[in-house]
């Protein structure tokens, strides 16, 4: 079976500010149709710049981007028609009503009026009872949802969510993810950036890590977790030890700060995890064990280790 062409294809993209500052450096990235793609990276990594270029808000310096097969410069109308964008900052027209601003967005994207669609979007985002309210009277979380409603007003095939849950409370965040999942189920491709790594872990099908303007990794979430997924065994001791006995040096154990536990890292995919022999050797060294627990390293650990790598 032929693979579906990517819905977004970024090739050799660079963004250079001034004479030498490279905000993005030779980015190559394909987004698959219908996936939820999470773009992770520390502040200033280039996430928003990348999104801004794809959506037409910033010019690219080198390279090219196609959206649905349309070049974003040569065929910008077709490319942009497919995209709904929810930027990071809360940019709203304070004095407009919710209904007016969402209808405006639909018109701006060249779509004929469709009150039924706008009603559905507002209801899905729990904004229906606020439709006649001026935006200035809404809370931050509601403004965020108004921006999502604007982005969905023209029935886009691709939705960009730049830090969508910043400043949104837990309840609303959950509701927002329900909407995102429903959109994905209806065939919309979703690209989100987030600082909350748990969210990427929970929501995304694939994850890209960007740092200092370069994509350093793109991987299926499951593959990423497995590939880099180390497990950690924490052995709680009955007594306190001051140092790891020399006979256990081969295990590269780490002693907890209080001396009441040792921590052992192992690879779940290895032929031998070494756990059995570790426990044996601990007993032989006269160390008595009170408890054991294991922990899968989270995406956050993976992320931090990637970004910190020289």
């Amino acid at each position: 079976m032929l693979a579906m062409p990517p819905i977004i294809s970024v090739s050799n993209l660079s963004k250079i500010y001034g004479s030498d500052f490279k905000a993005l450096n030779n980015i190559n990235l394909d987004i698959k149709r219908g996936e939820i793609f999470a773009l992770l990276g520390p502040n200033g990594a280039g996430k928003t710049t990348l999104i801004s270029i794809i959506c037409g808000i910033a010019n690219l310096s080198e390279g090219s981007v196609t959206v649905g097969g349309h070049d974003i410069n040569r065929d910008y109308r077709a490319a942009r028609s497919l995209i709904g964008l929810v930027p990071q900052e809360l940019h709203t027209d304070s004095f407009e009503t919710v209904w007016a601003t969402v209808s405006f967005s639909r018109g701006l994207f060249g779509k004929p009026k469709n009150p039924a669609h706008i009603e559905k979007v507002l209801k899905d985002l729990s904004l229906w009872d606020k439709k006649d309210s001026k935006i200035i009277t809404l809370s931050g979380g509601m403004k965020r949802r108004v921006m999502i409603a604007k982005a969905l007003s023209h029935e886009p095939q691709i939705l960009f969510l730049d830090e969508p849950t910043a400043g949104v409370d837990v309840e609303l965040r959950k509701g927002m993810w329900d909407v995102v999942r429903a959109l994905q189920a209806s065939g919309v491709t979703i690209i989100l950036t987030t600082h909350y790594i748990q969210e990427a872990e929970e929501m995304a099908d694939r994850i890209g890590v960007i740092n200092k303007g370069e994509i350093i990794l793109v991987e299926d979430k499951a593959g990423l977790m497995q590939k880099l997924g180390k497990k950690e065994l924490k052995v709680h001791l009955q007594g306190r030890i001051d140092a790891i006995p020399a006979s256990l040096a081969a295990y590269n154990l780490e002693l907890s700060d209080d001396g009441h536990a040792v921590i052992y890292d192992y690879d779940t995919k290895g032929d031998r995890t070494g756990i059995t022999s570790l426990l044996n050797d601990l007993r032989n060294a006269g160390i008595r064990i009170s408890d054991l627990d294991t922990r899968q390293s989270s995406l956050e650990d993976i992320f931090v280790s990637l970004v910190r790598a020289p």
Partner: protein
Amino acid sequence: MNYRAIRAIYLFEMARTWRTLLQSIVSPVVSTSLYFVVFGAAIGSRITEVEGVSYGTFIVPGLVMLSVLTQSIANASFGIYFPKFVGTIYEILSAPVSYIEIVIGYVGAAATKSIILGLIIMATAALFVPLHIQHPWWMLTFLVLTAVTFSLFGFIIGIWADGFEKLQMIPMLIVTPLTFLGGSFYSVNMLPSGWRTITLLNPVVYLISGFRWSFYEIADVSVALSLGMTLGFLAICMALVWWIFRTGYRLKN
């Protein structure tokens, strides 16, 4: 053409006018009425006639132009500056609209407002002085051309400005003086010849002269020259707007 986008931007901008009716329409009308009281009644009673027309009547075209110029610039510059300032410009830039469509939407709305305003001021003036328009079509042509040209100019200022100060600077420091010195309240022929030559460097003279000619068939310079200068200024503004969008100047970086 994305006509729906033009319509959306245009109606959005017009809605802003109705929302701010007091400052958009009422305040220019009030200030113009004050000009009539001060210049027309108080000073005008000492000046009998200018080129065969009573002074109060003479200043009407100039006053209309004064308002149309300043309001076109104010409306259009604020119209595009505000989305830049609050950040909602992101949506315009990410929408499938061409530069021409954006300009038609914003400049069209700003020009519409100032044309409506110009007509309201004329109607107000008719309450104070007898008003007769010799060439109504030419009057409308000059009115529309001027409104569009200066709305474009305002659009450029709105994009260029990166603070409210800059937004006010050009209208206050350049446009208002040029308008006052451009023959709103006097005929250029009343000036000593040296000043007259200098005054002819002021582009506003040509706008007011042409506009006044359409009312009373009296003009400081020939009508063809007035029209030519207006069109020339329009062309310059269009070229500047084209350059702004081609380079993304202050919009896309």
